[in-house]
C-alpha cells in the first residue's frame, strides 16, 4: 500500500516534507495504526503517540486524507491511496506526527473540569435519577483526543482565546450534571465573544469526533441557557 507521511525532525535542520512510503500489508482487519507501526518497525525514526490501540485513550489522533481520526480505529481498507497522514492541524508540530497538545489542554483546564458541590457530603452517594444521569451521555465520554478542536477553524485562528469544541463539551458536561452547583459560574466563565461565541456552528467537530459525540449540540445548549438567563 502507498502512504504519504508528514516528516519533520527539528534536529535534522531539514524543512518539514512529505515522505512516500510503500508497505506490504494486507489491509483486511487491520487499522491504520497497524500500518504506521509496521512502517516504524522498518524505519524507527518515524515518531507517533499511541497507547491503548482500541480507541479509548485518545493518543493517536492524526489527520488522515484530510480528516482528523484516531489511527487505531481507522480501518486501513477504507482509505484511499496514497494514504496521506499528517499531524493534527492547528497545533505546533514537535516532530513527525506529534503535536504540542498544551494549547488544547490549557483550554480544557480553563473550564474548570471538576464537579463543584459545596453542600455537606453525605456518607453515601448523592442521588441522581437515571433521567438526570442520561443528560451526561454524549458528554462524559470525551477522550481528549483533540480531533474536534483541531478540526475547528475558529480554534485555528484563536487557539489562545476560543475554548474549542472539546472544552465546551466538557463545560456542558458539568453544567448538565444535576450534582453540580456551579452552573451560574460556569456560564459566566464561558460567556464571552471569544471563549464561546467563536463557535459559528459549522459542525466540523461533529464530523471529526471519533466517538460520535456532538459538541455543536452541547454548545447550542449552553447558548440557550445563556439566553434563558438573560431574557
Amino acid at each position: 500500500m502507498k502512504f504519504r507521511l508528514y516528516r519533520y525532525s527539528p534536529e535534522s535542520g531539514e524543512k518539514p516534507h512529505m515522505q512516500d512510503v510503500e508497505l506490504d500489508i494486507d489491509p483486511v482487519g487491520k487499522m491504520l495504526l497497524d500500518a504506521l507501526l509496521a512502517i516504524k518497525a522498518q524505519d524507527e525514526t518515524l515518531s507517533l503517540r499511541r497507547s491503548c490501540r482500541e480507541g479509548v485513550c485518545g493518543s493517536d489522533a492524526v489527520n488522515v486524507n484530510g480528516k482528523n481520526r484516531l489511527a487505531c480505529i481507522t480501518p486501513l481498507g477504507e482509505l484511499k491511496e496514497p494514504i496521506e497522514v499528517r499531524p493534527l492541524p492547528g497545533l505546533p508540530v514537535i516532530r513527525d506526527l506529534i503535536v504540542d497538545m498544551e494549547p488544547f489542554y490549557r483550554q480544557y483546564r480553563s473550564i474548570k473540569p471538576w464537579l463543584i458541590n459545596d453542600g455537606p457530603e453525605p456518607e453515601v452517594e448523592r442521588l441522581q435519577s437515571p433521567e438526570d444521569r442520561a443528560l451526561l451521555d454524549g458528554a462524559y465520554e470525551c477522550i481528549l483526543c483533540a480531533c474536534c478542536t483541531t478540526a475547528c477553524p475558529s480554534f485555528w485562528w484563536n487557539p489562545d482565546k476560543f475554548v474549542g469544541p472539546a472544552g465546551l463539551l466538557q463545560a456542558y458536561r458539568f453544567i448538565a450534571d444535576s450534582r453540580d452547583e456551579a452552573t451560574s459560574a460556569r456560564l459566566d466563565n464561558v460567556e464571552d465573544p471569544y471563549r464561546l461565541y467563536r463557535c459559528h456552528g459549522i459542525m466540523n467537530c461533529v464530523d471529526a469526533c471519533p466517538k460520535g459525540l456532538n459538541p455543536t449540540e452541547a454548545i447550542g445548549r449552553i447558548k440557550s441557557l445563556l439566553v434563558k438567563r438573560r431574557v
Partner: protein
Amino acid sequence: MNTRRFDALIVGGGGAGLRAALQLARSDYKVAVVSKVFPTRSHTVSAQGGITAALANVDDDRWEWHMYDTVKGGDWLGDQDAIEFMCREAASAVYELEHMGLPFSRLDNGKIYQRPFGGQSKHFGGDQATRTCAAADRTGHALLHTLYQQNIQHRTQFFDEYFALDLLRDADGYCLGVTAMSIETGEPLLIEARTTLLATGGAGRVFWNSSNAMINTGDGLGMVLRAGLPLQDMEFWQFHPTGIAGVGCLITEGVRGEGGYLLNKHGERFMERYAPHAKDLAGRDVVARAIAIEIAEGRGCGPRGDYVDIKLDHLGEKTIAEKLPGIRDLAIRFAGVDPAEKPIPVAPTAHYMMGGIPTNLYGQVVAPARFGPEEPVPGLYAVGECACVSVHGANRLGGNSLLDLIVFGRAAGKHMLEYLRDNPYPRSLPGNAAEASLARLQRWDQAGSERVAAISDDLRRLMQTHAGVFRTDAVLREGLEKLNELEGRLAHAGLQDTSRVFNTARIEALELENLMGVARATLVSAISRTESRGAHTREDFPARDDEHWLKHTLYSRAGDQVDAKPVRLKPLTVESIRPKERVY
C-alpha cells in the same frame, strides 16, 4: 543535570497514582506526578465493567461476603489482612469517587448502578451477588478522568511525557526520588523527593496476545529489580477469557454479568460442564482454562477453530445500548459483528499481573532486610497493578482491580503524609546517584547490529508460547533458555535513530529492558512453583499443594533467586477463611 525537588513524587498517572497524588495534593505538601503519557492515556482508561464494592444497592450484600469471594477467587494465596482492609474500605472509597463527580450509571431509586460479575456470591459461596458498580461499560474512563480533574483542581504538578528511569537511593536504603527523561527534549532530569510512590501499572505487553495498552511495559518493575529489590508472585498472570479473537481488545465480564454467555462450535453452553453452579460467571482463570480446553479439543468456532463465541443478542437492543455501548462499538470495529445481532468471537488474552512489587497494606514496599523478611524500604511505596499487596492472590476477580487502585492509592497517600511528618528533613543525595541511569541512557547512543523491534517481537512470542495458560517444567525451562539468548541479542542491539527530540525508538528500547526483567521473573518464578493454583496451571503438577505452596514467591535478580514468604491467613478483625477446594 537539571534537578527538581518535591516532598512527594508519584511515578505513573493512572488510577492508583492519581488517587494517591490527590491525597497528597490536598495537603500542604508539594506533590509531583511523572507520567510517560498524558495521564488520561493511562491504561486505567480501558477498564470497562466496573468497580466492586458491597453497597447492596441491588441485592443483599456485605463486605464480609466480598472478602470471602476475593480470598476464594485468589485460590487462598491472597493475604487476608489486606483483603479485609480492601473490602471494608470499598464502599467509602466508591462513595468518595461519586462525590468527586464520577458519572456512575444509576438505578431507578437514584443510587449507583451495580451489576453481577464473575466469582461474586452471597452468604459465603451461595447465590450470585450483584456487586460491581459501573458507569455503563466505561468505568475506567470515567474514574481516570474524574481523578485527573480532581488533581488539576488541587494543582498537582504534572510532568507529562517524562519517562522514569531509575530509583535514587542512599547508602541506608532510603528512596530519594527518581531519574527521569523528558521525552519531548531527551534531556535527563533528576527529581528529588522525600517519598516516592511507584504506580506504573502492569506489564501485559510481555505477551504476544494481550488486552493491555502498548504502554504496559512494567517500567516500575524494572526500576525495582535494578535497585536490587525483589518481585512477588510473578508467575501469576491472568488471562482474561474474552478478548476479541486475534486482536486482544477486551470484551468485559460485564457482558456475562448482564446475561451474555459462551458457546462452542456445537452451540453448546460449555461453561455448564466446567462450573455447574456459577457457569459463565466462574472465576476468570476457570473460564479462560475452559475456553482453552474447548479450543484445544477441537470444539472452537471459525475456520481454524481458534475461538469461541460470546452471545448477547438475546439481551435486546435497549440493554446493549444503555449498559454496553462501548462493547458494541469495539465489536463492530474490531470483529466486524454487531453484538445485537451476532455473537462476538473471543479467546483468552493476557490481561493482568497478580504479582508485582511486594508491599504492605499501607503501600510501603517491603523486602527482606536486616530486621526481618518484610522490612519497609524507607520512602518507597507502590500501588496498583505494579504492586502486590497481595489482595488478588493467584487470580484476580473482575472489578477488584479498580478497587485496588483507589483503596490502596488512598491508603498509600495517607501513609506518605505520615512519613513526611516523621521525616521532615530531606536526606542528601549521594553524588553518584544518577550515574547508572545516565550510563543506561548513553548505552543506547552506541551502534548495534540487533534491532529493538525484532527482539521485542521475539520476546512476546516466547512468553506466549512458554508462559501461557498451560505450563510444564520443560516448556518453561526452554523459554528461559530462549530468554537467555534474547538477552544476549539485546546486549548487541542499537538504535538507528539517536536523535533527542521525541525519540520514541529510544523509549521503546528502555521499555524492552524493563520487559526483559519481567519475563525473567515470570519464567523463573513459574518454574519454581510446582503446583497449580489460580491462574498458574502446571500440567505436570495439576493439583493445588497447600502443604508446600501456600506461600508467596519472591524473585530477586541477583542469581535468579526465588525465596518464599508465608501467606497471611489471619485477617485484621474477622475469622480466617481456611483453604478448601475451589469450585464454582
